[in-house]
């Protein structure tokens, strides 16, 4: 069920593919169905389309060469790959990451600790905004540190970390630096050379591209061991028949995103501030999580005292408003968000959190509706609560 009136504010979970993306993907699903690994013309035209998309993705993140882009099935696989490649193919078995990473990084670390290859991970503490200092990182580096993986921006609270300064520490100590940039690529300028990273993960469906496609940037010269084995695709580094339509779609999305970012449109930031101000004026005991300025445009995470997030989410949905409570991936779980706990929120407060994530398609009217709708829902749920004193 999707009707015109749905107000979609969960763009950090997934986004609506751009109409241009759909249009360009279509031929590659229908008559241009060739396998780019083959030698006949139908395959070669598919290969050409894949190469063009690779170039567009390379352009979006300022890679030196399209050869540094490896297509994957999504951000999750990119994260898994970066860590497994670095730890499995090296004597250096120590991983440093942060306590606010996406589960794709956190659980891969746990995995590396259990398969008997000798992996060991440390999870850096963050401050109240989600930041990590150069000192904290520097102190954690050991002789056998094989990779440092710290996210560019957090998917729940939106905080953008100072990756440039952290990657500098890694470079000085000669450790490979990976960043999960799934939440920033396509939304803010991301330049791998400027950031100084060796590897970077991105995902198509987070910036109005298709689902099921992502990429891993690997700086030339960085050792890369395959994670999915079995064919010559992606220069022998990532096997499996290339997902041509999705690759083409992500390429177009990358091109659109680049144009969008270059326009320096601040509409989304302004709408986000409007949303925060509107909620803050009309709801008591509400607070904002994450850094108010160093944040992904469009992401607003709030905690509202005396309510549980899921109940708010369901009531908003009844009004046609889609938001997320805690992390999208753990909505089915009962634990409070590990990110909110890591930035110091008590569990009972963390339970009452909501994440709004806007996109360039979000309208002011939609934000007005949310500002009008949520306070009544909060009142209603607080009325039901045995702990709320008013």
């Amino acid at each position, binding site marked *: 069920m999707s009707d015109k009136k749905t107000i979609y504010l969960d763009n950090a979970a997934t986004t609506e593919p751009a109409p241009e993306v759909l249009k360009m993907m279509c031929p590659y699903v229908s008559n241009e169905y060739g396998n780019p690994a083959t030698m006949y013309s139908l395959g070669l035209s598919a290969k050409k389309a894949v190469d063009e998309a690779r170039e567009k993705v390379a352009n979006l993140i300022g890679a030196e060469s399209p050869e540094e882009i490896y297509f994957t099935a999504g951000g999750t696989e990119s994260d898994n790959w970066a860590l497994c490649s670095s730890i499995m193919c090296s004597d250096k078995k120590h991983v440093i990451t942060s306590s606010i990473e996406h589960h794709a990084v956190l659980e891969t670390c746990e995995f590396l600790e259990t398969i008997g290859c000798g992996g060991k991970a440390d999870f850096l503490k963050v401050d109240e905004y989600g930041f990590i200092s150069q000192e904290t990182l520097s102190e954690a580096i050991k002789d056998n540190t094989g990779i440092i993986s710290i996210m560019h921006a957090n998917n729940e609270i939106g905080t953008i970390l100072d990756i440039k300064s952290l990657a500098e520490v890694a470079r000085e100590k000669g450790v490979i630096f990976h960043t999960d940039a799934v939440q920033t690529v396509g939304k803010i300028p991301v330049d791998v050379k400027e950031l100084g990273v060796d590897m970077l993960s991105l995902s198509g469906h987070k910036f109005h591209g298709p689902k099921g496609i992502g990429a891993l940037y690997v700086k030339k010269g960085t050792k890369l061991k395959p994670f999915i084995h079995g064919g010559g695709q992606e220069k022998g580094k990532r096997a499996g028949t290339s997902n041509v339509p999705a690759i083409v779609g992500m390429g177009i999305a990358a091109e659109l995103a680049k144009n969008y970012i270059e326009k320096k449109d601040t509409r989304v930031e302004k709408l986000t501030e409007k949303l925060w101000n509107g909620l803050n004026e009309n709801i008591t005991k509400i607070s904002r999580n994450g850094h108010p300025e160093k944040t992904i445009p469009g992401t607003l995470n709030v905690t509202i005292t005396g309510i549980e997030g899921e*109940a708010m989410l*369901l009531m908003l949905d009844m009004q046609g408003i889609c938001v997320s409570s805690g992390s999208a991936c753990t909505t089915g779980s*009962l634990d409070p968000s590990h990110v909110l706990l890591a930035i110091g929120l*008590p569990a009972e407060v963390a339970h009452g959190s909501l994440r709004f994530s806007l996109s360039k398609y979000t309208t002011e009217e939609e934000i007005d509706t949310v500002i009008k709708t949520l306070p009544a829902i909060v009142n209603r749920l607080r009325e*039901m609560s*045995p*702990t709320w004193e008013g």
Partner: protein
Amino acid sequence: MSYTKEVMDHFSNPRNMGEIENADGIGEVGNPTCGDMMKITIKVKDDCIEDIKFKTLGCGAAIATSSILTELAIGKNLDDAYAISRNDVAEALGGLPPEKMHCSNLAADGLQEAIKNYRSNN
């Protein structure tokens, strides 16, 4: 994860929400750290539950199970009311997602606490 129509009905139109003043029995269960708290208040007459109200902080399932519990309990004698199980609650709602089954404990436990409280006072 998705809820049944019954859950969504009780969640959006909860029955017997509120608190009975001068209640004969009060049951409080749950823990805000876990994100869920429930308070059941009952009025008892002739060993039967004459009135029952709930207040709940919690997820959709917690609110819906509270609501259906009050409907199941009202009018029952105390022993029968005490015997209402988490499964009775879940069944009356047409089922709960597996990861939400624990929420139904809260409601049954809350009522049992209220009945115990009433009995210890009388």
